[in-house]
């Protein structure tokens, strides 16, 4: 699966980083005198690694070790307190071959990702566009829209959500006005996952802010040029704004997907760590957590972790591959 990861990354910045032919040759001609590549390229290499120095220190000092440790543990039986015993692939074969809870959690997680990511991004983009306009009080609206996201995974959220989606909760009281007798959203296995999706959508603040910042990064003369062409607002939005925003859209799609695959806190606090009712909110990372910290099967949990890494890497790879077709970078001088 490492191969996939690398390929994903390789394609991504590759597509991104390689200069269009015209520019690249222009650069070369500029440096033609000392071209025999050395000094110039050597200085670029030096600069590149220098800028990355802090990151390298973090990677090798703090991040890589624990990752390798968990990779190793995934081939062992490890109960946290006594030494790990090498068991080869058996954790992996057990997970994939005969673990109903694994399957349950994959199902729950994919449903969550497929539902929450597009909805959250649509809300975020739509409101970013609205909030990008100039209107008195816009600062206030922006802040209010972000408020739910400030609450994050705070413990109070669990209680709030029960008040909202309980049997006698606010949602059902509202529906009652129209004579609709709503279900017990949070406690009914058919709806409980939906309430967590709603929570994710409610907290759309972060991608919204990133969209807003992206919209602001678009040079206004681009839009002005289109204005001269006589394009209507919708045309301008679709053919100018959206393409220029694609790097940011791409970022949000990739990161929100990764984050959604790893969603833990909402289900943890709302189901009180159980993933219930009847496993309906058993998110993948919640299951991993239960294995690791309540059943003390850290080896098994580590294998779960690396299976998730493989899934995420595959999805990310697809995103990067597709990005060549729809993401436009200003630094590629189209």
């Amino acid at each position, binding site marked *: 699966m490492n191969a996939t990861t690398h390929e*994903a*990354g390789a394609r991504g910045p590759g597509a991104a980083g390689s200069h269009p032919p015209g520019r690249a040759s222009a650069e070369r001609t500029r440096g033609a005198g000392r071209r025999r590549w050395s000094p110039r390229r050597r200085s670029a290499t030096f600069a590149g690694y220098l800028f990355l120095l802090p990151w390298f220190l973090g990677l090798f000092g703090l991040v890589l070790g624990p990752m390798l*440790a968990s990779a190793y543990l995934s081939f062992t039986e490890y109960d946290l307190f006594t030494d790990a015993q090498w068991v080869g692939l058996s954790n992996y074969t057990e997970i994939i071959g005969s673990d109903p809870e694994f399957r349950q959690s994959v199902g729950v997680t994919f449903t969550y990702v497929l539902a929450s990511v597009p909805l959250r991004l649509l809300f975020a983009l739509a409101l970013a566009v609205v909030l990008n306009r100039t209107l008195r009080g816009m600062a206030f*609206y922006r802040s209010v829209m*972000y408020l739910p996201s*400030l609450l994050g995974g705070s413990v109070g959220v669990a209680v*709030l959500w029960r008040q*909202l989606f309980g049997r006698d909760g606010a949602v059902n009281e509202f529906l009652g006005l129209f004579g609709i007798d709503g279900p017990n959203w949070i406690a009914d296995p058919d709806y409980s996952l939906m309430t967590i999706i709603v929570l994710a959508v409610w907290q759309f603040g972060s991608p919204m802010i990133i969209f807003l910042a992206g919209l602001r*990064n678009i040079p206004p003369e681009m839009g002005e040029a289109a204005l001269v062409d006589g394009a209507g607002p919708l045309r301008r939005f679709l053919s100018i704004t959206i393409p220029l925003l694609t*790097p940011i859209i791409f970022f949000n799609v990739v990161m929100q997907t990764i984050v959604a695959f790893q969603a833990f806190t909402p289900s943890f606090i709302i189901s009180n760590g159980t993933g219930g009712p009847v496993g309906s909110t058993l998110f993948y990372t919640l299951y991993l957590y239960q294995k690791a910290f309540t059943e003390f099967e850290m080896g098994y949990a580590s294998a779960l972790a690396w299976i998730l890494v493989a899934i995420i890497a595959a999805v990310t790879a697809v995103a990067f591959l597709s990005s060549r077709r729809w993401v436009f970078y200003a630094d590629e001088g189209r």
Partner: protein
Amino acid sequence: MNLKRVALHAFLVLVCLGMLYPLLWMLRSSFMPEEQIFSPGTLLPTEIVAENYPEGWRANPPGFGRFLVNSAVVSMGAVIGNLAACTLAAYAFARIEFPLKRVWFAAMLATVMIPVHATLIPQYTIFTAIGWVDTYLPLVIPKFLATDAFFIFLLVQFMRSIPRELDEAAEIDGCGHFQRFSRVLLPLMTPALATTAVFTFIWSYEDFMGPLIYLADINRYTVPLGLRMFMNGMGESSYGQLFAMTALSLAPVFVVFMIFQRRLIEGIATTGLKG
């Protein structure tokens, strides 16, 4: 035109109300006595009781004020760290050509793919070995080492939407990479930097797992740890105080957000290309 504005306001107010309902419920609960909060049928308090605030503030000595200060220290340290380290790394990925760049970029993305619970214990062992447990260092120093790949990637995307002509002009003027980075690119990226700052602040501020694992002495506790203490799995929970302090804990982040949100939208539109 006027009508359009009114309609826009109406729309936004409506959305805001929907968004705010749960928060308003929380605020209302923070002013109610414990036994009324959950009793069905009482939406509005019959009498407003403010004592949850002073009681919650004083509970769990050294108390909530201290937790707020601790959180502020940790969060600001994290902001400085992320701003310094992630921008540097992002510049390298976005603007410099060097061998193995793609491999490192992929490695960076891979680091965000592994669930935290799988690496928690090895990481704890490292920090124990270097004697950093029960200090803020495990919460802050990693930020200075750009371990938040989320922000590196974010900043790369923003840098890449800035036309290369701008820094090439500086290159012709004889500016090295560092000058191009600090004098040309960074000023153009206010929204992205503000985004990084705001998110880092908020996410560190609300982080539960890191402080839980690394902070032992209650005098060093941050807000999320303080809030959990109102919920007692083995006995009485103090919901009124929990809501009061949750509401209160939103205030500083809200203020930070209000201040920064102007920067967030101060894009190229006002600072860059036109000038």
